[in-house]
C-alpha cells in the first residue's frame, strides 16, 4: 500500500476546495438580502436571513399566475427525477433481459440499433419529439415530460453487461427448479441486480432532475415548472429598477442541489458496488 504523505493530502484538499467552495459561496450569499448582494457582490460571511429567504423561496406563490411555490417546483422535479430513474431502469432491464436471454432473429442488430441511439441525444431529436407529444396532446403533462426520454441505451448497455456476467448455470438451475422466464427474472435476476439498479438509479435521477431543455419546451403551464427552470424564472424579473432576487436565486440553486446530493450520499455504497463488483 502506498503511504499517504503530506503532498497527497494537499492535492485532495485542493480538489475539495474547488468542488465545495462555489457551493459554500452560493449558500452564504443566499443568506444575505438581495440589496446587499447587489451592492457587495458574493459573500463569504453569514448574512443572517437564512430562515426568511428559504421560507419565501419554498412557500411564496409566484410566477405570472401567482400560484407556483418553490415547494411545488421541487415536487415536480422530484416526480421527473424519480419517474425518469424508475422508468429507465424498468425499461432497460426488460430490454437487456430480452437481448441477453432470448434468441430472436436479428438480436444483435437490435442491440446495436439501441446502442447507436447513444449518438442521438435528446437535443438532436427534440423537434420531432415535441411534434409527437404535441400531436398526442401530452404537452403540460407528467407523461409528456417523462415518457419520451425513458428509452435508455446507457441503461440497457449496463444491464446487458451485468446479465452477461451472471453465470449460465444459474439460469439452468432455475430452469430445473421449475422457474419460467418471468419467475427467473423476478426471483433471480432482479434481486441480483440490486446494486446495479442503485447505480443506474443515481445516474438517471440526477440526469432527470437536471433536465432543463425538455421541460422548458414541454411545459407552458407553470404548475409543471421544475426547480431548475424556477431559478431562471427568478432572474427574469429584471424589469425597471427592480433588483433581481439574487438571494432567492441562490437559495433555489442550493435547494435544487440538495436532493441529488442526498441520493448520492445515501446510495454511494451501493453505487460503487454496482459499478465495480458483480454480486455473485
Amino acid at each position, binding site marked *: 500500500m502506498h503511504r499517504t504523505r503530506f503532498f497527497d493530502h494537499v492535492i485532495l484538499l485542493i480538489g475539495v476546495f474547488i468542488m465545495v467552495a462555489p457551493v459554500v459561496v452560493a449558500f452564504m450569499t443566499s443568506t444575505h438580502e438581495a440589496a446587499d448582494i447587489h451592492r457587495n457582490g458574493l459573500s463569504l460571511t453569514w448574512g443572517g436571513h437564512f430562515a426568511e429567504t428559504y421560507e419565501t423561496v419554498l412557500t411564496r406563490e409566484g410566477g405570472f399566475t401567482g400560484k407556483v411555490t418553490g415547494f411545488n417546483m421541487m415536487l415536480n422535479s422530484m416526480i421527473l427525477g424519480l419517474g425518469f430513474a424508475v422508468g429507465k431502469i424498468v425499461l432497460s432491464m426488460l430490454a437487456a433481459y430480452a437481448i441477453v436471454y432470448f434468441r430472436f432473429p436479428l438480436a444483435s442488430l437490435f442491440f446495436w440499433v439501441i446502442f447507436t441511439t447513444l449518438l442521438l441525444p435528446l437535443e438532436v431529436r427534440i423537434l420531432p419529439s415535441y411534434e409527437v407529444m404535441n400531436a398526442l396532446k401530452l404537452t403540460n403533462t407528467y407523461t409528456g415530460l417523462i415518457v419520451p426520454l425513458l428509452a435508455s441505451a446507457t441503461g440497457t448497455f449496463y444491464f446487458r453487461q451485468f446479465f452477461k456476467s451472471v453465470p449460465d*448455470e444459474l439460469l439452468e438451475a*432455475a430452469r430445473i427448479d421449475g422457474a419460467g422466464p418471468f419467475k427467473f427474472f423476478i426471483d433471480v435476476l432482479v434481486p441480483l441486480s440490486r446494486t446495479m439498479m442503485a447505480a443506474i438509479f443515481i445516474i438517471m435521477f440526477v440526469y432527470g432532475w437536471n433536465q432543463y431543455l425538455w421541460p422548458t419546451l414541454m411545459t407552458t403551464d407553470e404548475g409543471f415548472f421544475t426547480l431548475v427552470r424556477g431559478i431562471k424564472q427568478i432572474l427574469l424579473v429584471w424589469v425597471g429598477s427592480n433588483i433581481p432576487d439574487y438571494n432567492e436565486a441562490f437559495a433555489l440553486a442550493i435547494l435544487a442541489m440538495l436532493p441529488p446530493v442526498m441520493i448520492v450520499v445515501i446510495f454511494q455504497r451501493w453505487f460503487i458496488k454496482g459499478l465495480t463488483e458483480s454480486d455473485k
Partner: protein
Amino acid sequence: MAAIDIAGVSKIYTGGVEAVKSVSIDIADGEFIVLVGPSGCGKSTLLRMVAGLETISKGNVTIGTRLVNDVDPAERDIAMVFQNYALYPHMTVYENLAYGLRNRGTPKAEIDARVAEAARMLEIEPYLDRKPRALSGGQRQRVAMGRAIVRKPAAFLFDEPLSNLDAKLRVSMRGEIKRLQKRLGTTSLYVTHDQLEAMTLADRLVVLNGGRIEQIGRPLEVYHAPASTFVASFIGSPAMNLLKGVLEGGRLHLGTHAIDLDYPAPTRGPVTVGLRAEDLRPASAGEQALLFRVDYVEELGAQRLVHGAVEDQPLTVALPPETPLASELAIAIPMDRLHFFSAENGKRLQRRGETDRTAMAVPARPQAVNLESVS
C-alpha cells in the same frame, strides 16, 4: 427413481459440429453411471441433453417409461448439481433448497420437513440461514446436493461437481456422494474428467472420446481390459505404457528385444503393446527381461514411479519403495498381463485363453441399500 435409456443420441450444433455421435447407454434403476473423458469429448453435452438443457438432435432419451425429448427440464423429474454450485447468491441456504419445491406448489409444511431432512443428512443445518457467500466451497457443494435431494427426483445429474474443490475435500466429498447415492438409491449420471473419481464412484463407467463411446463397463473391467489404446491411456494412474511392437512367429519383438510368448499370439504383424506400470517388476536371473534405462524417479511414498525408456520407447515402472535402483534395470515381462491393441485402429486384440480377471475381481453391482427409507 427410474431407469434412464439413452438411445442413439446425437448432438449436432448449427454449423455441423457433431459433439455427441449416436451414443446409447442403458442405465438401470438406482445405478451410478460415470461419464468420463477428456475435455471436449461430449460428456457434458450428453448430460445436458438428459437434463433438457440442450436439445437432442437425434435419438431418444427415456426416463422411467417417459420419452422426454421434448419435455421441459423442470418436468423431467431430474435434479442437477453443477460444477460452480449455481446457488442463488441472494437467497439463504434454506431458500435455495426450498425454491424448486415452492415453484412446484409444495405445501409449506412439507417443504420445511424435506429441507430439514436434507440438511440433517448433509450436516448443513447450522447454515440454513446463511447466504452462500458465507460458506466454504465444500459447504456450498453440500447445499447444491441438498437442492437436488429435496426434490426427490428420479435421477441425479452431476456435472463435474467436485472440480472446484481442493484435493483433500474432493476425496471426502467423493465418499459422501457415493454414500448418499447408495443410501437414497437414486439413479445417477455423473460427469468427470478425473479417472480416479470415475473409478471410485461408478457402478459402471462410460469412457467417451470425441463424442463416441470407447467403452462401457464396470471400473475393474475397464481397468483390466481396456477396449482401446485410448481407454488404456486414460484409465489408471500412471497411464498404461503403450509400446510399439511386432508379433511374429509366436514372439513379440520390442525394438531389438524378442520375447517368447507362452500363448498363441492374437495376431501377426505390428501391434501396440500395453503394460501397466504396476504389473512390471525387476527380473530375476534367467527370466525374459527388457533392458530399462532409468531417466528419473518420482517418489510417492507407497511406491516409486521410475520413468525411463526401453531403447527409444518411454516406459514407466511402479516399484516398491525399497527396490534398489541402478541406472539400468532388467524388467520382467508379465506374460499374462500383456495387453495387445491393433496398430491400425487401437482396438483391443483379445488373446485366446485370456483369463477373465474382471469376473473374479468385481462383486456384482451392489443393490441400493435403504438404510433409512427417505421417501
